């Protein structure tokens, strides 16, 4: 791998939240910093997410891009083992599957991975007037 790149879990670059509707899951993926967006756009493709969730046998995975929010929305069909009423899984809603997405490994330029904890970024954007 190019020495200027670093392999990191998505968890270091973005946060996520999952929601369920029937047997369909959506997972949002939100960059901690705008500079990460293009790297995620390239690597966290619908196909890569389908591969990550292969144990749940998605029948379709679609990615919606929201550049204005620095975010993506993934919609995965038929990955909830029947959905909340019928799944035999412990987490019937699939609420924790957001962290399956965040376990994906991505390559990012070393210089972009700040030593500042991401939590500082979150706190800052709450208090900095636009």
């Amino acid at each position, binding site marked *: 791998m190019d020495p200027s790149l670093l392999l990191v879990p998505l968890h270091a670059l973005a946060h996520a*939240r999952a929601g369920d509707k029937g047997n369909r899951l*959506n997972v949002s993926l*939100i960059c*901690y910093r705008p500079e990460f967006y293009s790297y995620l756009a390239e690597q966290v493709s619908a196909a890569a997410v389908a591969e990550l969730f292969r144990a749940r046998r998605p029948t379709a995975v679609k990615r919606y891009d929201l550049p204005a929010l620095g975010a993506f*929305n993934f919609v995965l069909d038929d990955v909830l083992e029947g959905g909340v009423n019928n799944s*035999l899984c412990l987490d019937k809603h699939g609420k924790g599957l957001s962290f399956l997405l965040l376990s994906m490994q991505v390559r990012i330029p070393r210089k972009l991975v700040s030593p500042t*904890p991401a939590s500082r970024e979150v706190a800052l954007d*709450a208090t900095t*007037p636009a």
Partner: protein
Amino acid sequence: MANTTVHIGCGAGFAQDRTDAAGPVVDTLIAAAAPAFLIFETLAERTLAQAQLRHQQPGGTGYLPAMLNFVGPVLEKCLKNGIRIIGNFGAADPLGAGRALREVMNRGGFSDRPIGVVLGDNLLERVSPEEIRHWPLEGAVQDPTVARIVAANAYLGAESIAEALDRGAQIVITGRVADPALALGPLAHHFNWEWTDWDRLAAGTLAGHFLECGAQVTGGYFADPGMKDVPGVADPGYPIAEVAADGSLVLGKAAGTGGLVSLATVKEQILYEIHDPAAYLTPDVTLDITGVQLAAVGRDRVAVRGARGLARPRQLKATVCMAGGWMGEGEISYAGPNALRRAELAIEILQARLAKLLPSLPVHFDIIGYSSVFSSSSGPRRPFPEVAGVPDARVRLATRGSDRRLVERAVAEVEALYTTGPAGGGGVRLQVTETLDTASCLIDRELAASRVELL
């Protein structure tokens, strides 16, 4: 400035939500002295179906039994300060909920304050189960043509809520409505928005979308230690949206509470349960959030603008709930040396037994665990350092079926491992619960004749 915006606070985001969250929201609304409304969202698909099952029993309560737990602590304050309340507590019996609240308000000296009840979502009032089972239902596990239909409800929009408020209702109780309608109703009422003013209806729907899950936009369901820390995480304040006549809004939260309103919390909630961000379908409008702009405008304050609206869908979404069967779960734990191998052996034993005794039941196995079997109530929650390898291995069996006795028979096999399974198994828990099966379809608007009754 106070009179140019209307403030909408949220007191609950689901049926099992905290019942003490609304108090600080109401205090904040009173202090702001702007026109204000308080909404409660308490009605999941399953909650409504369970209410319908109770309502069919003689003397059973068809509305949300927790209604008074949610409303009680703030009712008097709201009524004395002109804060009107909108909640979908009605579930299977909105009129029953209205009458129960009427009694409470009469006793409290508020007999002159009208209660508005929104009716019409219950499709079983107008359509027979026979007819419904032949609708193009999607998502059910079983064949709807032979299932027992328990509930069939349309997702109503905000128009009847606004009408109830127009007619002076101080409290509005609904059954099934689209969750964001709980906020759009009071906004359309207050600002007199036209029901074809798509951009404003979209903005009001987005306001409702932010509010409808309670603390999920104010630092609840957000914390990830070291990455996304939340101050006062045990007591996040519930959200308040300050909405202007053009639909732009500022999201904040109850004063003097914990939690966090930041660009990050707002972004997580804006996409929650959204599929196509350019076309979020509601009964009132098709919402497009792709052009939404967010700006941090102060501590725990985020400004939101740019929601776009397209014409509302021609049809309404309806959810049909059918009696399901029974779900069984059984768990047993193994810890210490060779725990994982013993857990795997327990699963092999259960598989062999169930294949022989109950081959028709689907089975699912998990191995769960970190620190439980060796722990103490006063000790640290960590695996014992002297025990290398897997900390705890808790075997979980899950199964389901239409015959309760067979499901009970299956989970009993987990308890039988106490004497027949691998060495050192402990902590058995068994649970058998009734399941419901839901399906959805699109229906013509005429089938859901939304109307308001004042009590």
